[in-house]
C-alpha cells in the first residue's frame, strides 16, 4: 500500500513539471480545424495552405521564431486574451465587435461572403426567398452575424466547424449555408458539394468589415506595429503575390 502512495505522489510531482517557463517564441494559432485552402492539417501532422505560407512569410519578415499552437475556433479569442497564444492568423475578419476585445493588424486579405444552396433551389440571397428555411453558419463568425441580422424569418442553425454545416447541407438537413466564397471553393469541387452552388454574394460593410487581419492583444502595441510592417514588406517585395499565385487565380487582397 505504501508503494501505491509513492506512485500517486510521483504522478502528482510529474504533473507539476508539465508546466514550463514560457519560451520567447511567438505563439500563433490557426483554428484547430481544416479550412482549405487557407489552412489544413495533413496525415503527417503538418499545416499547409495559403494562410500558413503567409504566416511563415510574416514571421520571416519580422525575424521572429513562430510556434503553432492548436486552439479550437470558439476558444481562440479567450486563448489570445489568456496569453496562451500571441497572434491569431485564422481568416478572422476585422469587426467592431471583436475590436472591443482584441486589436487587429491591417487586412491581409478580403473575400466576399456568399450564400451556398442546392442547385435546384430558388434562393437569391434576399431574406424573403429564405423565409421559413434553415440556414447553417459557423458559430462566432461574421457570417453568423449576417444570418442573424437579415434572415430573421429563417431558422439560423450554428455549427462548430465549417465542415459540419457543409455536411448537413449535402445531407439536406439545412437548406442553405452562409460562408466565405473562397472557403467554399474546395467543398463545391468535392463529391459532397456537387449538389450545390453559390447563389448570391452577400454585402454589408458594417458586418463584414474591411477584411481579414491578424488578431493581437490590445496591449501588445509593439507586436502590432511589427506585424503591420511585415505585411507591408511582403506585399511590397512580391512574396505575397508569389504565394497567392499558387492558390488563387485572382487578387485575394481585394481592393
Amino acid at each position: 500500500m505504501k508503494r501505491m502512495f509513492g506512485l500517486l505522489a510521483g504522478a502528482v510531482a510529474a504533473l507539476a513539471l508539465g508546466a514550463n517557463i514560457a519560451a520567447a517564441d511567438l505563439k500563433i494559432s490557426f483554428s484547430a480545424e481544416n479550412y482549405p485552402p487557407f489552412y489544413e492539417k495533413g496525415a503527417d501532422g503538418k499545416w499547409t495552405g495559403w494562410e500558413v505560407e503567409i504566416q511563415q512569410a510574416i514571421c520571416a519578415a519580422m525575424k521572429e521564431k513562430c510556434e503553432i499552437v492548436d486552439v479550437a475556433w470558439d476558444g481562440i479569442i479567450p486563448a489570445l486574451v489568456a496569453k496562451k497564444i500571441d497572434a491569431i492568423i485564422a481568416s478572422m475578419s476585422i469587426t467592431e465587435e471583436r475590436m472591443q476585445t482584441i486589436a487587429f493588424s491591417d487586412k491581409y486579405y478580403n473575400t466576399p461572403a456568399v450564400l451556398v444552396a442546392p442547385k435546384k433551389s430558388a434562393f437569391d440571397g434576399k431574406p424573403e426567398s429564405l423565409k421559413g428555411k434553415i440556414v447553417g453558419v459557423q458559430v462566432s463568425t461574421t457570417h453568423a452575424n449576417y444570418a442573424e441580422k437579415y434572415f430573421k424569418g429563417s431558422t439560423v442553425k450554428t455549427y462548430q466547424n465549417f465542415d459540419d454545416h457543409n455536411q448537413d447541407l449535402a445531407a439536406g438537413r439545412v437548406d442553405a449555408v452562409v460562408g466565405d466564397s473562397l472557403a467554399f471553393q474546395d467543398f463545391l469541387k468535392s463529391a459532397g458539394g456537387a449538389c450545390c452552388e453559390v447563389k448570391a454574394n452577400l454585402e454589408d460593410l458594417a458586418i463584414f468589415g474591411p477584411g481579414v487581419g491578424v488578431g493581437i492583444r490590445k496591449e501588445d502595441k509593439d507586436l502590432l506595429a511589427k506585424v503591420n510592417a511585415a505585411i507591408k514588406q511582403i506585399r511590397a517585395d512580391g512574396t505575397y503575390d508569389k504565394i497567392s499565385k499558387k492558390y488563387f487565380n485572382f487578387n485575394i487582397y481585394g481592393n
Partner: protein
Amino acid sequence: MQSSLELLALWPPGWGMNLLRGLGSTVLIALGAYALGLAIGLAGAMGKIHGGRFLRGALEIYTTLIRAIPELVLILLLYYAGTDALNVLLESLGFARIDISGLAAGIYVLGFVQGAYTTEVLRAAILAVPAGQVEAARAIGMTPGQAYRRIVIPAMLPFALPGLANLWLILTKDTALLAVVGFGELAQATRFAASKTKAFFTFYMAAGALYLALSLASSVLFSALERHFRRGQPAHG
C-alpha cells in the same frame, strides 16, 4: 475515393498513426487525471470523515460545486480562466509566467473534476469498513496512519473498486471534451482526419472501435483488481 483500409493505414497518407497518437494522448490524460483524482479523492474522503467543521465545509462546497457543473463548462472555465488567473497570481508574486501545456492543463482540469467524484466513492467505501476492525488495529498498538494503510485501505478497496472502475470508464470518454480547447486527443484527431478526407463514417467508426477497445481492456484489468482485493471474502452470486 480512397478505400477505408488506405485511409486507416499507419503511415501518411493514411491516418491510422494520427488516430493511435490521439488514443495515446487520451490514455495519458486519463491516467494522469485518474491518479490526480485518486490523490484528491483519498485526501478529500479522509478530510470529510476526520476533518474539523471548517475542512468538512470546504470539501462539501468542492464536491457539490464540481458535481453540479457540467464537465464541459468546467473545462472551458478552468482552461482559459484558470490558467490565466494562475499566471496573474504568479506575476503579482514576482514570479515568471508559466505556460501550461494542453496535456498538463487537461490532466489538471479532469483530475480536479475526478477528485470530487472519487472523494464521494472513497468516503462511502471507508465508512463501509466495520469500525471494529479499526478499533482492533488501534488496540494492538498501530498508529492511526498504520491502521489506515494496513487495515482501512485494503478493507475498503472491495467496496470502492466498482465505483472507481465506473469513474475510470467515464473519464476515458470525458477526455473527448478536451477537443473543445483544441487539444489533440482521439476525438480531435478523428475530426481532423474526417474533415480532411470527408470519410466521416470510416473515421468515427474507427474512433468508436478504439474507445471500445480501451473500455474492454480496462474492464479486464478492473475485474482482475477486484478479484485480487476480494480474495478471502465469500463469493456472491
